[in-house]
């Protein structure tokens, strides 16, 4: 039954492709047309998040805000709108609020995987035009897991805000979640680099810095993306993201469960 709902809104798929293309173009221009020589390197540079040294650059922040606004508008907003436009008739038919959460979860997983697939295909196509084929498998898989988890977290958190609040306020809160960890990390990096290690404890920051092979600030990249304890390098990030994901999902579930459909003059 649920698979039918995924394919209903084909417009989202087209918007995702357009968004990825825009994101790539913006980064390609700002990095002066530099293409690394491997799929992993290209993915990290163009889709692996923000460069630490650019975290307080106005241009990069505007670019990030633009992509984030479009991302929230194209995906979680559309998913929430689908429910809200016909909320009563849809909700009571599900009969259980957990099924409504499943509705969100299946769409989020599908769109996250689709997003990643398109990114990889675009980047592979572009990289292999100019360089021989070189894939660093294990690292690429870790990177894909981290960035997919980040997408899922952003989707659930945005849906939490957009479902509970009016669109404009929900959008602001969603953007705060996406952008503020990056800005805070940038400020710390530029003003107090010795405290950079602590930035890995900022919520929702783990998917933001995945470029460590490419950036000249490899040491700092390593210390943010991975734990200082060698045996827990990748696992630390993974566990933090799992906790963030669980919190986001539970938050959305609580809102679905608690929201009274008062209607009329009583509606918020």
């Amino acid at each position: 039954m649920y698979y039918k709902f995924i394919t209903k809104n084909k417009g989202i798929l087209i918007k995702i492709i357009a968004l990825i293309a825009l994101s790539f173009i913006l980064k390609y221009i700002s990095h002066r047309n530099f293409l690394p020589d491997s799929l992993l390197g290209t993915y990290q540079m163009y889709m692996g998040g923000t460069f630490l040294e650019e975290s307080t650059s106005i241009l990069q922040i505007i670019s990030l805000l633009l992509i984030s606004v479009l991302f929230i508008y194209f995906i979680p907003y559309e998913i929430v709108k689908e429910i809200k436009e016909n909320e009563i008739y849809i909700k009571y038919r599900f009969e259980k609020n957990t099924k409504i959460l499943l509705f969100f979860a299946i769409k989020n997983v599908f769109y996250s995987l689709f997003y990643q697939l398109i990114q990889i295909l675009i980047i592979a196509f572009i990289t292999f035009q100019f360089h021989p084929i070189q894939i660093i498998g294990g690292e690429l898989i870790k990177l894909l897991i981290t960035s997919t988890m980040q997408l899922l977290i952003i989707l659930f958190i945005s849906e939490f805000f957009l479902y509970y609040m009016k669109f404009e306020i929900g959008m602001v809160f969603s953007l705060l979640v996406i952008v503020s960890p990056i800005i805070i990390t940038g400020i710390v990096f530029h003003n107090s680099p010795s405290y950079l290690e602590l930035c890995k404890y900022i919520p929702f920051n783990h998917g933001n810095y995945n470029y460590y092979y490419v950036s000249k600030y490899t040491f700092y990249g390593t210390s943010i993306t991975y734990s200082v304890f060698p045996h827990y390098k990748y696992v630390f990030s993974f566990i933090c993201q799992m906790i963030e994901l669980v919190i986001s999902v539970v938050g959305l579930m609580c809102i679905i469960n608690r929201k009274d459909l008062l209607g009329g003059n009583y509606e918020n």
Partner: protein
Amino acid sequence: MKISVKDVTREIKGNIILNNINLEFESGKIYCLCGHNGSGKTMLLRAIAGLIRIDQGEISIDHKILHKDMDYPPEMGLIIETPSFFKYYTGMENLLYLAEIRDKISKQDIIETLKRVGLDPHDQRTVAKYSLGMKQRLAIAQAIMEKPDLILLDEPTNALDQDAIIQFKNIITEEKRRNACIIIATHNQQDIDELFDEKIYLNSGKVERVEKND
């Protein structure tokens, strides 16, 4: 099916909108919740439908308590307030979408239901182009298409012309014959007065009196 509303109270922003309501409903009967605007009839309907929580008391359906044993009554059909559908889908597409959630009925069942309410199943117009009367008919269709055991209707005859009201009365009578429990909230009961087995008069969130049609 037996619905029990016991000591139900709900307050919103300092106003008591449901005040110690005690009622029972059963299958095969049509109930009317009567009262002026603000009497609490819509809120009572919402409470029974599981759309709002109550501050005190409990609502149970066949001994299962709402918001404890279940989130919404099972096998329910509902119209609440102004019908809202996907504007850029046709009537048929809207009902197909909704029917896929429970996945109990076929496309042919939806076609039959649309004809029953006086709508053309092959109408290619989107709901955005529907009149209020057509939207109301579509709302009635979505409420009855899955042959629910419990039908809750809030002002179902709004925007309906006389022919549509006659059609509606026939539909409700058929649903009663099918042994559904039907609860209708309306401030305009004279159009459909002869349907009701029981009329419950509400005022300021309280049950003022109950009239039974024996």
